[in-house]
């Protein structure tokens, strides 16, 4: 069948600058560039280009520019280029369209319509350069009250505290499963989490034994496929997370195609090389809150009550009621992933149309747990579209204990959001298990990029807190009075629990 699809991008090469070094030829994972020896020229097949910028960055003479294909269809507000391309692809292949990364639609972000407060005249701001600022965060169940006893002039805590994760800043790395990302990415995340004092999350693909030494800074995930889940894996992590859902694809499972299941990945997932790793949509032992409780307590039993158990869900319409059930089921941490949460591979139709924005889910979950008097029983981590320190601090003011960052961490390591993770050919060596490509990501350099990012955000968070006259992140948590909305309807303001700017 003749394809009616056009190239999405155009490669523009400045012939004057090009020195025929062939770096672009070697760097492109999609075989876009080739060298024509006869004419001594580099040629490009535009139709292969995914706009990953690999050649743009690596061209020593900056000779390459990638443009959106300017040959647009006739202007039409209803039938966008995206809609037309999707139709043509489906007409040609007859299958579910797959994509990578998070929802790219506008209008789902509320962070940018929320503004932070600052101290002026009536209360002093604090200078974080001169005064201590506490952003250390403890994640886990907190007691309703604590009992102290005086013993020989000393005060001794009598209440037995639940296990806690201790983060130097309220930022953790989101679940990125080995197989979806490379070993080097897992290594960099684990090292950065250890160096900085936070946590990475294995995702559902298990943990390579070479990384067990970072276990104190790793949250191990248990998902429906139970890949790589065995007693040693549960023992090594600092916490265990039950994955019910993920923001990019609420309600569905995942299929890691057999060709990505290489030797190493097979060892970690504990399945034979080359077989599809199918994660069923539901956990087949969880059909109710009561069943969830059963798995939570099975994991508590398996880890002898020494680790917090987290439960991760996608933000959906009735998240607040579900969250209440999760807390009552015994979760020490609940993680909620909003509609903008990313993935290595998901049906595009689901990524872009299912779930709700994390800001709204967070506001209603936090409120519900407060109303029911159980907010202290679990910490809340939010995920799905946290792209700056401002988003982190707004999330905390809205009621989160901490955030998970996935996409932001990948961008720090080199990702350019080309949304082609599902092809397994990530040109930045991130979302791939191809040895030729994984070599591109040096774990030590990536670790530095990640710790730099965490440091930068921490400094910014402290600056913003100081400006508000707050010196401990605890005082900001759920402090919605320090937020104001712009461009929001009354209903939106009501759900977010914030006032309109000016009010």
């Amino acid at each position: 069948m003749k394809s009616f699809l056009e190239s999405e991008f155009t490669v523009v090469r400045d012939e004057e600058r090009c020195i025929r070094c062939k770096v672009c030829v070697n760097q492109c994972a999609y075989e876009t560039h080739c060298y024509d020896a006869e004419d001594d020229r580099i040629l490009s097949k535009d139709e292969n280009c995914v706009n990953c910028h690999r050649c743009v960055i690596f061209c020593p003479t900056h000779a390459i520019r990638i443009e959106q294909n300017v040959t647009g269809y006739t202007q039409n507000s209803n039938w966008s280029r995206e809609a037309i391309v999707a139709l043509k692809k489906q007409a040609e292949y007859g299958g579910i369209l797959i994509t990578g990364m998070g929802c790219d639609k506008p209008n789902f972000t509320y962070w940018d319509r929320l503004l932070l407060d600052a101290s002026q005249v009536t209360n002093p701001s604090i200078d974080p350069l001169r005064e201590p600022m506490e952003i250390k965060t403890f994640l886990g169940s907190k007691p309703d009250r604590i009992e102290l006893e005086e013993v020989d002039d000393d005060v001794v805590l009598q209440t037995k505290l639940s296990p806690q994760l201790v983060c130097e800043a309220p930022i953790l790395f989101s679940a990125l499963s080995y197989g979806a990302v490379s070993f080097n990415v897992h290594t960099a995340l684990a090292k950065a989490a250890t160096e900085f004092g936070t946590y990475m999350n294995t995702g559902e693909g298990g943990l390579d034994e070479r990384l067990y030494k970072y276990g104190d800074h790793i949250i191990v995930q248990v998902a429906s496929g139970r890949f790589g889940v065995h007693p040693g894996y549960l023992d090594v992590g600092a916490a265990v997370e039950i994955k019910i859902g993920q923001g990019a694809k609420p309600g569905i499972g995942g299929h890691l195609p057999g060709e990505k299941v290489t030797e190493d990945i097979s060892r970690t997932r504990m399945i034979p090389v080359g077989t599809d790793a199918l994660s069923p949509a539901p956990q087949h032992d969880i059909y109710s809150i009561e069943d969830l409780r059963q798995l939570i307590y099975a994991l508590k039993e398996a880890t002898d009550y020494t680790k917090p158990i987290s439960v991760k869900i996608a933000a959906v319409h009735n998240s607040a009621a579900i969250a209440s059930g999760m807390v009552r089921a015994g979760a020490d941490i609940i993680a909620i992933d909003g509609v903008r949460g990313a993935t290595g591979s998901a049906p595009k139709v689901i990524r872009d149309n299912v779930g709700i924005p994390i800001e709204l889910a967070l506001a209603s979950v936090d409120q519900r747990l407060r109303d029911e008097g159980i907010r202290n029983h679990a910490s809340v981590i939010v995920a799905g579209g946290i792209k700056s320190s401002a988003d982190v601090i707004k999330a905390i003011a809205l009621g989160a204990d901490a955030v998970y960052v996935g996409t932001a961490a990948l961008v720090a390591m080199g990702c350019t959001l080309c949304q082609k993770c599902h092809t397994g050919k990530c040109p930045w060596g991130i979302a791939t298990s191809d040895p030729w490509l994984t070599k591109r990501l040096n774990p030590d350099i990536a670790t530095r990029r990640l710790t730099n990012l965490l440091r930068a955000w921490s400094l910014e968070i402290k600056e913003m807190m100081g400006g508000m006259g707050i010196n401990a992140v605890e005082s900001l948590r759920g402090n919605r009075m320090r937020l104001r909305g712009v461009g929001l309807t009354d209903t939106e303001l009501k759900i977010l629990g914030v006032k309109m700017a000016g009010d």
Partner: protein
Amino acid sequence: MTEESLSSAIRNRINMKDGIVHVDAGGLHYKDLNTILRTLGNPVPIVHIENVYGQRYIGTDLSNNMEIHICGTPGNDVAAFLDGSTIIVHGNAQDGVGNTMNRGRVIVHGRAGDIVGHSMRGGEVYIREDVGYRCGIHMKEFEGKKPLIVVGGTGQDYLGEYMAGGTLIVLGLKMGSKPIHHARFLGTGMHGGVIYLRGEAVHTSKEVQIKPLDESDYKILRRDVEAFCKEFEIQPEPIMECEFTKLIPASKRPYGNLYVY
């Protein structure tokens, strides 16, 4: 942990007789029961847990080499994440027997509920009578680890769902010499491993194919059926006289052609 570290209330539940440790589980919380099992550890090979009334998670994550007899009815998730040890249930078991187990043996002298061997990766599970829905769901094998489930009775729908490895044998012993297994959607999403049914299936999913058994299949079957028979003191020969059906995945990648990249 040592036995001394247990509270006296729990310690009173333990009683040693003829080299066998007896634990009275009546009214005991599963947490305390598992604490006892973990505490006993290696030097104590045989444990009898008596008066079990529905406690969940018995034997979760046990990695030593005990032989644990459960007298009564254990609750859900018996032997979850098991990593060694043998657990023998003298009675019926409920849902989640051997959930995500890695190693060890589970023997049930009765029936078992849903999702027997959910995601198990290694070890053996023998159920004397029937099992509920989704038996063997997502069991998988890896290198030296090859899980085995043998069911003496029959199973409910979605037997072997999402199966990715291992062996699931269903004998239908109470169904005469030509059992017809009525479970529907057998092997839905199956992409690895093998199911042997004594007799025939009425409703298999489109992801499985029925294959004739060859000599190597019979070798496996004879070995595993004999192991089953030994546990329950049954004669293996008459069982093997019947014809078996072999189900294997139609493809290693049942959902490979649904997507456009």
